[in-house]
């Protein structure tokens, strides 16, 4: 069973409610009757599926390197931790993920941990260089799950020490962010000592190009000005578009992106206009918008790379 039953139930009910809201086709009475009927069926179904409720906890989907189901971390600290972990994933290739849950009952945190590891697959495929930090707040337990490839860099002993000497004292004072932050720093330092292959360029393709965006913008402005003054408005714009799309292509952009860049740069250079002052004033807004959008779509996607775990690491409490 991939999706836990209660979750699916909720999903179905939500869909039904949406249907209810936008019911132009049916009369409200009809929809109500239908809704009642479906609710009845679902109720009966939930009796049948009742044993599923005592089944182990569902693993949350991996969207960000920091998953906090308890709202323990403030949005800011969650973001700063996530940024740090995204950075590691980008620069070293190894991945660390944090999961804070209320409880892992009825499972032991180690059993839960290996299930999370198998579901998330943190770390790269062959390197298996992923680490998952799990905190069960109500159980007052934590675990560091270490991927196969990092069992040398982070032996069980070291993981245990990070837990008992770095995390536990801070957690006892309620400083979850500080504990996690320090643990992440220690683990990152340990991983840095391990000789691992550099991250592949392909995996960070979109993020990489978006990183170049501000530089590309400036290049576009300057080459645009030069080319326009030499070749005239239209030829200069076209040349500028061509030059930029070649640059993007060299940087590893997909063909579609290259095409879009050509068109964008062409229009951009055309729009620069004869009036230098006015044209210049237009750029900052374009720049800001492009960068912000890039930040959203390129940076914040975090997913496991297929790393395997074998139960290495350590558990502890506070």
């Amino acid at each position, binding site marked *: 069973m991939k999706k836990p039953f209660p979750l699916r139930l909720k999903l179905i009910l939500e869909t039904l409610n949406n249907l209810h809201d936008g019911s132009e086709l049916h009369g409200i009475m009809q929809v109500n009757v239908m809704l009642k009927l479906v609710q009845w069926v679902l109720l009966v179904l939930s009796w049948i599926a009742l044993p599923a409720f005592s089944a182990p906890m569902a693993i949350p989907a991996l969207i960000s390197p920091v998953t906090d189901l308890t709202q323990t971390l403030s949005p800011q600290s969650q973001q700063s931790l996530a940024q740090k972990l995204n950075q590691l994933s980008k620069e070293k290739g190894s991945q660390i993920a944090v999961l804070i849950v209320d409880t892992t009952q009825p499972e*032991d945190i180690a059993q839960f941990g290996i299930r999370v590891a198998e579901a998330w697959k943190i770390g790269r495929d062959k390197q298996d260089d992923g680490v998952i930090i799990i905190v069960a707040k109500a159980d007052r337990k934590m675990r560091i799950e270490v991927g196969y490839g990092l069992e040398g860099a982070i*032996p069980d*002993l070291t993981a*245990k020490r990070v837990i008992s000497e770095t995390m536990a004292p801070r957690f006892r004072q309620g400083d979850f962010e500080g504990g996690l932050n320090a643990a992440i720093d220690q683990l990152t330092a340990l991983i840095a000592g391990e000789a691992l292959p550099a991250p592949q360029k392909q995996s960070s393709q979109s993020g990489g190009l978006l990183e170049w965006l501000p530089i590309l913008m400036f290049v576009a402005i300057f080459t645009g000005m030069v080319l326009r003054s030499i070749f005239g408005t239209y030829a200069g714009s076209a040349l500028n578009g061509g030059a930029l799309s070649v640059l993007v292509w060299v940087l590893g952009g997909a063909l579609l992106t290259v095409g879009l860049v050509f068109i964008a740069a062409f229009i951009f250079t055309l729009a620069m206009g004869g009036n230098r002052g006015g044209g210049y004033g237009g750029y900052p807004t374009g720049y800001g918008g492009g960068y912000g959008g890039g930040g959203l779509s390129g940076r914040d996607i975090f997913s496991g790379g297929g790393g395997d775990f*074998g*139960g290495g690491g350590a558990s502890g409490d506070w």
Partner: protein
Amino acid sequence: MRQLYTKLLPLLLVLGLSGCGYNAFQTLDEETKASWSEVLNQYQRRADLVPNLVETVKGYAEHEKEVLTEVADARSKVGSIQVTPEVLNDPEAFAKFQAAQGQLTSALSRLMAVAENYPNLKADQGFRDLQAQLEGTENRVTVARNRYIESVKEYNISVRSFPNNLTAMMFGYKAKPSFTVENEKAISSAPKVDFGNTK
């Protein structure tokens, strides 16, 4: 006509074999072997920890002879069992192996429970390190066993279901033994601390 037969026969044989699960047996058989060697690896890792652990505990709790000899005995028994790949196809040998490992598991958990009564031992850095290593290894054993159970399940389903079972019979592929539930319980349950028995 005869020529046609001699040409078709190998083709039919190949198609027939893959259709009857012969190729699936090969894949699944290899998978069970791979997951089995991971189980062995982790058991070996645990066995390697035992001498150090016994020595460390002895330093603080020498008169706990009963538990200490129990662990040492279980350790030597585990070491004496020859584990060949054939163990996988021999339920009796498998049961013997499992019993020996189970004995070491329970002896070790008793030892750790006894250690709880010695504050000095518990505070010893060497002991704490060994404890962390033992915990990690036991967890790896559990994971490796679960993966072995999964792979055997897949293999056994393939061997037993029709028409694969006919092919299996023909080539002598038998269902493989797996870890039993009682033993699973002994491993996953926390050690009991019985203050009445410990001196």
